[in-house]
């Protein structure tokens, strides 16, 4: 393959696809493959780290009755990666509980995984009408993702988290997401700058979503900023790592709805 070919492939993929958003296992991390177990379950993009555990919290658009709490753990044996987690979103009347799992394979320059999430409304009284028609109060979605590093500093990914869905509809329609990340860094991988773009496929009659961002890493610290469209908005995030412990946070500001805040704390088995 000629040196410029990966860039062309990435460009074509971005043109074809469109930015799936998190719902049950949102993690304070830039889009694309990440080491956080929650992000693995959410996107189906397998991490390179071998093992880890994470607790994440999201407050959507400053609404106290719409918060997500999730815990997840991941493990790896050789090239195999597996993760599982549970989450709870929203207050009793509208909220739901979820259990998710992901299983994937990672090689040096590629990874592929399947993921699935099952949901059930928070309040279903035993013997009630809702319990008798559980398909109206519970649902399952399944999909997958893959990433590829066609060049040393380039990663492209594709995520189809809801390739199939059954039962009650997911809280958020998440079409396919394609993205690419390019890093400029030192050879040790402990510092540097990365840029990414992502495009989410059109959902229904709506147009595609687009996102772009940049991340600066210096030793154990990382900071990133993102911009998105529909409507135009921005966010920023920070993470800090001390040995296996990673603490991260992200704030995205919506011009009409307010801020969405994500925080997470993780124990990761392999340092970057």
């Amino acid at each position, binding site marked *: 393959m000629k040196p410029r070919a990966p860039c062309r492939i990435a460009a074509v993929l971005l043109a074809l696809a469109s930015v799936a958003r998190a719902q049950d296992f949102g993690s304070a991390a830039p889009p694309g493959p990440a080491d956080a177990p929650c992000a693995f379950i959410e996107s189906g993009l397998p991490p390179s780290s071998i093992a880890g555990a994470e607790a994440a919290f999201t407050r959507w*658009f400053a609404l106290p009755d719409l918060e997500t709490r999730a815990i997840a753990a991941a493990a790896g044996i050789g090239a195999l990666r597996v993760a599982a987690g549970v989450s709870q979103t929203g207050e009793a009347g509208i909220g739901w509980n979820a259990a998710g799992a992901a299983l994937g394979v990672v090689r040096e320059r590629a990874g592929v995984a399947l993921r699935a999430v099952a949901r059930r409304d928070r309040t279903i009284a035993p013997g009630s009408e809702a319990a008798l028609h559980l398909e109206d109060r519970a649902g399952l979605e399944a999909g997958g993702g893959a990433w590829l590093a066609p060049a040393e500093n380039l990663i492209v990914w594709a995520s189809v988290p809801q390739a199939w869905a059954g*039962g*009650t*509809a997911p*809280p958020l329609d998440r079409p396919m997401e394609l993205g690419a990340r390019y890093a400029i860094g030192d050879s040790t991988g402990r510092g540097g700058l990365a840029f990414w773009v992502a495009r989410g496929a059109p959902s229904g009659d709506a147009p595609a*979503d687009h996102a772009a961002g940049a991340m600066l890493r210096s030793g154990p610290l990382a900071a990133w900023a993102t911009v998105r469209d529909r409507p135009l908005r921005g966010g920023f995030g920070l993470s800090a790592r001390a040995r296996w412990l990673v603490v991260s946070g992200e704030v995205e500001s919506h011009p009409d*709805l307010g801020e*969405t805040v994500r925080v997470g704390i993780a124990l990761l088995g392999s340092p970057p």
Partner: protein
Amino acid sequence: MPRRDAALACLLWVAIAAASLGAPRARGDAAHAAREARAAALCAPAAHPLIAEVFYDAIGDDTGSEFLEFYNPYDGALSLAGARIEAGDGSGPNRWTLRWTGHAGDSVAAGGRFVVGGAKVQPAPQSIVTLDLQNGPDAVRVVWPDGAVEVVGYGPQEFAEYACGAPAVDVPAGRSLARMPDDADLGANAMDFRAAAPSPGRANQPRRDLALVAGSLALAPEQPDPGASARLTGRIANAGAGSIASGEASLAAAAISEAGPIPLVTHAIGAALAAGDTIAFDESITLAAGKWRLRAAVVLAGDEAPDDDADSLLARAGPGPLELTEIQFHPARGEGEWVEVRNRSAAPVDLAAFTLSDRGTTRGVAAACALAPESLAVLAEDRAALIALFPGLDTARVRQVRPWPILNNSDDSSGVADLVVLREEDGTPCQRVAYSAAGVPGGTPLEWRDGGWWPSVASTGTPLAPPVAATPLSRRFACSPRRLRADGTARLAWDLPCPRSRVSLELYDLAGRLVARPVPEFDAPPRGERSWRAAEIPPGVYVALARARPPSGDPIVESSAIRIEGRAP
């Protein structure tokens, strides 16, 4: 004989010859001479009195009120002996009926008039007879003993015999067909005659006549607030044959109540008016609370037709004794249209003493009902259907209105669907409401509350009951239920600190994308609620963003999470 002397001799001979033929000489001016010269080609036969005015359609019963006026424009008296007035029925050919025949002593003095008419005509006609003329399109004619005929037709004619040239206009009831000027003869009834106020025995177009154009007097707003400025407008016309100099005439207006007149306007008219000219006036006035008769009059020295100098209208400043409180203009359950009214006076009022109208001309009258002070009543298009839908109503206060003025259900280009107008039986305004149908849910009446007309909180309205108060909220907005089915109906309620604002509701998905505007922006009272349907919105969890934009100040925005149920596609 020198040539000049020969010419004078010829002129003298012609004059003597004319006198010897016995023809009366025209009254002197060139127009008369010209008319005489053209008589054979025009409508009025020479050497006979003209038909100057025909009054064939009185308001109400015509009997005894009809008349025909002769006018003699010549210098000598003209006899009417043997002249016959015949009424023509324009629906068929040769349908002429004799109505009057001139007696031997009947004549018209030089420059004089002779009226043939019914016993009710004032001043009394020279010859009283019931003419029984047809209302147009028909005709009247005078057949002279020498065989000459003058025909005056009015309204479109199917047969040529019923008019001379183009027929004159068919005048509305209460107006007469008058020759203008009084000796006009231009070759067609349409050119010689026009509608005018009846003037038996008097000139149709006086030499000096300044008139306040009938029906032009208006007050804007029609029902001003007490002490607030209002505009009294009207038109003044020089209806005489001569011109009127600037400052020669004056305008006076007064507000008249039982206590007497209060002068409003008195000033000279600072414009010169040629014959036929019309000018408008626009005066700023203020009225104290209550019922008034506004009278405007023009004053001109030597005015020969004082009857058209003044006009008046009934007006009211401030609210009337009866007020509208609820308007059902788009009933959805077969109950018919209805309005609710309240007696805001300190004494009982009879509903039959009021009329109800819309933007059209229909004025409905309610069945009699003495309404106690502060009481509510319902004026209904279909009383029985309304009582059937609301069986608990006090039927004595639900009154049928006939004819019912049908109220429009959609706005015109000015944003108004229709008017609902209450008047006293003499026409005095009582209340006028212009309403908009935009954004009013189908079947829901408008009601007066919070200082405006708003959709009723109760979907079918509250006839004979005060408005249902919207439930106070602990927040500015409330969406309920928070979980609804895909085709379900939800409710947006609001409790705002501003008297009027523009309220809307938008739904965003968890990715922050705008998905739907189930409640587009609309004018909203301080408190209220509106329902919306979740149809066409995909299932999922959404952030419902309710927004109120007051006329001034920052918007009020609140959001909450809702869930629309549904199966995965």
